């Protein structure tokens, strides 16, 4: 092999190694910067207290509470729908059926639609159409549901996280051994009985993974809730589905771009970002652990 070739080879390998290292390095830099910037402020009090003094002091409890409430409502909507769609795709239809392929295409499209579009959809469909109709039918035009609130924000978010649930449940269902299924059918169980007693129990950890991944995604997204329910500041926690709510990601956005004192509240912003990052990482980490267990089980 000629010397020129050797040099080109070294350049190719070197450049590709450099790219991989550069990506890892920037991840580490982001983590380190945010941890250093936020660690002093990260106290128990910060997590459990209300914001004070026009959000320049105090904690972020309402934002954490609002985010948690939103992801719970979101999961209640997204997980059953996602699981059932995954069941249909794996058990009730063949790969080749046009209908199934259309559903798959729709799911992939849902996964790539920009999150701000979900926000627009939430506004146009949930708030203006569904909410507006509810108001005029049940409340005689009194404005209650036809405005941004936590229910509409959560439902908007559930559409965004639906593909996440579908994909991971589908993966889990495929790891349920076919023999178990066949054995159940051979013993005379019907298809629905088999699904209820064999498939769903066998893929419960996949459903759990999907839920956790969806929560992690939903907790971090801000664009869909910008105008479907997130609020800048609320003195009280949301108590009803028609209340607005505070949200961690939205809080970071507002504090860092529109706060009265951006520089003064810097530690709060970093600490809030740290909380959000820890939350999403923790959730992702749990999901990875469960997923690893599923894969091990599938091999054995």
């Amino acid at each position, binding site marked *: 092999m000629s010397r020129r070739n050797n040099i080109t080879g070294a350049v190719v390998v070197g450049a590709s190694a450099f790219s991989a290292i550069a*990506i890892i390095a920037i991840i580490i830099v982001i983590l380190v910067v945010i941890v250093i910037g936020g660690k002093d402020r990260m106290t128990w009090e910060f997590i459990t207290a209300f914001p004070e003094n026009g959000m320049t002091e105090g904690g972020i409890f309402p934002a954490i509470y609002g985010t948690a409430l939103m992801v719970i409502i979101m999961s209640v909507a997204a997980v059953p729908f996602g699981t059932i769609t995954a069941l249909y795709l794996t058990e009730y239809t063949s790969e080749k059926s046009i209908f199934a392929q259309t559903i798959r295409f729709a799911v992939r499209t849902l996964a790539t*639609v920009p999150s701000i579009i979900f926000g627009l959809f939430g506004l146009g469909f949930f708030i203006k159409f569904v909410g507006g109709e509810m108001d005029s039918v049940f409340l005689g035009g009194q404005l209650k549901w036809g405005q941004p609130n936590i229910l509409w924000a959560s439902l908007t978010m559930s559409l965004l996280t639906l593909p996440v649930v579908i994909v991971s449940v589908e993966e889990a269902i495929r790891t349920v051994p076919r023999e178990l299924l066949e054995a159940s059918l051979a013993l005379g169980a019907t298809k629905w009985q088999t699904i209820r007693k064999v498939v769903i129990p066998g893929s419960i950890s996949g459903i759990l993974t999907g839920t956790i991944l969806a929560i992690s995604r939903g907790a971090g997204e801000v664009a869909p809730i910008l105008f479907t329910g997130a*609020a*800048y500041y609320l003195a009280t926690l949301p108590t009803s589905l028609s209340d607005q709510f505070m949200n961690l990601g*939205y809080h970071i956005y507002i504090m860092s771009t529109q706060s009265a004192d951006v520089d003064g509240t810097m530690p709060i912003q970093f600490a809030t970002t740290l909380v959000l990052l820890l939350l999403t990482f923790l959730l992702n980490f749990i999901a990875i652990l469960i997923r690893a267990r599923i894969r091990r089980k599938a091999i054995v």
Partner: protein
Amino acid sequence: MKSYTFTKESLRKKFRLSEFLSEKIITGFALLSITIIILIFVFVFRETIPLFTSKERPTGSREELVQEQYGVVPEPRPDQLQRQEVYGIEPDSALMGNREYSTEEHAAGQERRVTVKGLLGDEWYPVSSNPRYGLIPLMVGTIKITLIAMLFAAPIAILAALFSSAFAPTWLREWIKPAIELLAGFPSVVIGFFALMVMATVLQELFGYETRLNAFVGGIAMALAAIPIIYTITEDALTAIPGTYKEASLALGASKWQTALFVTLPAATPGVFAAILLGIGRVFGETMIALMATGNAGLISANPFESVRTLAATIGAEMAEVVFGDTHYGVLFLIGSLLFVFTFSLNALAEFYIKGRLMKRIQGKIA
């Protein structure tokens, strides 16, 4: 001994209500994802219709318009006031860039129409006394940001994918892949925050340009969001190339890097292409990073160190403050429709490349 005879009757599946119902219900739920896509199309487009139809109509007051469209009993004013109170967003905050903002005139304004010519104008001043809804600066800004982001993201992500699929030892690969997937788990508001607080300052000191938040900073931050997508899909495409390709190349005396660069990578081009398309789609629709790190001024210029305002960021910044049903509201939905159509086509195209070309090529059906 009595022998069983199987008749057509006895072999027929017995009708069970629970089976029938469960199958129908599950199919119905599965339809939902298709329905959602259709609904998104319908409802995002629906809000833009008044923009174009109001031209033929005699101009009426806005209150009437709102009523006609939504059937909600009027009072759009208190609604809007309340929204402003709740959001508490200062209209003249830094975020609004050089926008002229005058709520008074806006409220007193008369019915306004939008023409195609108006939409192709080069000024975006939606809330001045003489509102102009020119989308050109927003499109230029979006394209500029996308170009900058892809210029950074595509080479880095593709090279990293090449490294982890071809050169890295197995133990290293098992670290790189999850680490980069971790980056995909970063909420975009966190990347935007990092770009706004840290990257903008560092880059300004390095390059010494004037505007702190500009297309360059925004583009690099967007690249961080696009890298995991491009990396993952490229990596998948590279590892999907059959081992026989590699073995044949190595057997012919090619070295490892020659095989990777001249055999594996070319074979995976449809996958790489799809990865870049999806990366573009991600950057195009990214809202939070654009809102936080690009400066949000709708300028038309080729200078990467000037602020830009993207399509998605415009929706995100202005939708919370518009009067429901007025022209500005419709134009924002029109922008949303554009974004949606664009990313939808990109996704369809990427699908075609992965499903159609990559798979066929791997199976040896096309050269």
